């Protein structure tokens, strides 16, 4: 049963949610399984060899929030980018473009849809991996704030990538050469304090590092950077990307010729 729609953007959000829900094996369960495999392998190999936060947190427990956040980010990006490029390439985007939906409507619907998928997958990863180590949420609101902002940022990046890419190959390049490296080099699997000084310094230019580190603070009350600093960096990055994306949508770049 499809609910009555209150306004245009909500219909587009509903479409985005229904779209990934209809293929939930691929969009939700598969990434949860992937994260679980990461946990099983990395925790088995590294649990007794890696010390994080001066030994105050077990490696497996340290890894879980990183995997949760990584799943949130990657799936938020995947949702908006794949939806948009599929619509562009198959041509059905025309049904959205001929409607009274404004650039803000399009932005809100695509990004919220991406956030819902990212957070749904993150929740699934948390529920499945939480059995493997004792976890507590020391500051749940901090964790929630970083999950929301992180998924919004990646949903927005996905929207931009979907607008920019003309073919799946270009989107895959964006994903594999930008999103994946930034995610993997953000401290998901390690604390940046374990890196040499040069790489530690470089990590501070990676906005994904602040998302993961701030999210992890929500669990342990411990982080590599002060959480307020991370929140400020992430919020400014989110605002900047939002402004850029709204400008791109307003101009109709690669959407309206």
């Amino acid at each position, binding site marked *: 049963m*499809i609910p*009555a*729609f*209150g*306004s*245009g953007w*909500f*219909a*587009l959000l*509903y*479409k985005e949610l*229904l*779209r990934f829900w*209809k*293929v939930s094996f691929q969009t939700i369960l598969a990434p949860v399984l992937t994260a679980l495999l990461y946990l099983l392998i990395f925790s088995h190999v590294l649990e007794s060899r890696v010390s994080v936060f001066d030994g105050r947190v077990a490696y497996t427990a340290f890894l879980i929030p990183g995997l949760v956040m990584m799943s949130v980010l990657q799936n938020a990006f995947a949702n908006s980018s794949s939806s948009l490029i599929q*619509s562009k390439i*198959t*041509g*059905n985007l*025309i*049904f*959205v*473009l*001929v*409607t*009274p*939906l*404004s650039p803000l409507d399009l932005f809100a619907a695509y990004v919220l849809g991406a956030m819902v998928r990212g957070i749904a997958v993150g929740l699934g990863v948390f529920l499945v991996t939480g059995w493997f180590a004792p976890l507590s949420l020391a500051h749940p609101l901090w964790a929630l704030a970083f999950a929301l902002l992180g998924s919004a940022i990646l949903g927005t990046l996905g929207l931009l990538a979907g607008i920019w890419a003309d073919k799946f190959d270009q989107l895959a390049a964006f994903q594999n050469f930008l999103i994946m490296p930034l995610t993997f080099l953000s401290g998901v699997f390690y604390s940046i304090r374990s890196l040499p000084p040069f790489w530690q310094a470089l990590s501070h230019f990676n906005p994904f590092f602040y998302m993961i580190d701030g999210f992890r603070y929500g669990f342990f009350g411990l982080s590599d950077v002060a959480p307020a600093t991370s929140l400020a960096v992430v919020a400014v990055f989110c605002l900047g990307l939002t402004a850029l994306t709204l400008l791109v949508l307003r101009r*109709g770049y690669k959407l*309206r*010729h």
Partner: protein
Amino acid sequence: MIPAVEIINVARRFGAVQALAGVDLVVEPGEFFGLLGPNGAGKTTLISVLAGLTHADAGTTRVLGHDVVDDYRNARRLLGVVPQELVFDPFFTVRETLQIQSGYFGLRDNGAWIDEILHHLDLTARADDNMRALSGGMKRRVLIGQALVHKPPVIVLDEPTAGVDVELRQSLWTFIRKLNRDGHTIILTTHYLEEAEALCGRIAMLKAGQIVALDTKRNLLSSFAGITVRLAAAALPAAWEPRVVRRDEGSYLLSLGDYADLEHLLAAMREAGIVVEELALQEADLEQVFLRIMARHS
């Protein structure tokens, strides 16, 4: 009265191609209007400008008085567009497709109208099937349904019957005629000129981004006062070549001023020793008018 569609000096260039070169056009409310032209004439670009899919380089376009750029929300609420390409979203059923499209326009409780659309387009039995499971003709009907979900007063049909079988084409036109009778303005582009002749009250012909003819169907047909002769022969006297509007292998379609011209043509062929194998006179129809106008502007 506010025109249904008002296009003022609209121009659009794509690289070296001038797709639209200062088009002026007014379509009145309630008209069944035909937009004809060869491939690449600019028909789809003009429709895209109207629908907000393409930005014009210059000029103004309004739908029932609402500018398609400055007041795009209202302009798009008043317009329904059936695109030329057979596109669909493979994730959804027919009913979901129409409900979601309806939602984009902020419409609540639109189920009764969606049921009516499904009925008129003979899609009721397939309403809960995925779009992928439909034939090409059925997908095209859903496209038409999507353009109608918000009951737009102005409906643009860009080649709506391409690839559609004859039976379905007839039922489709019955439905579109009903919409026109109910007050909807219809703008049609088609390559089937007999369809345009049967349906449209007024016709514009586009070529190379310019309107080369714009008149009522009656005036266009009556302006074609001459006669058309189709004849089969091995060759044609060179002096008569300019009168040829279409040439197939061993067959010529000629546009003549009157019957005296025909007499002269036959005399010229006898004199040149060319045997006329077959000869037929044709009533003036829109296709001949179209061919003549296009030839005049080539």
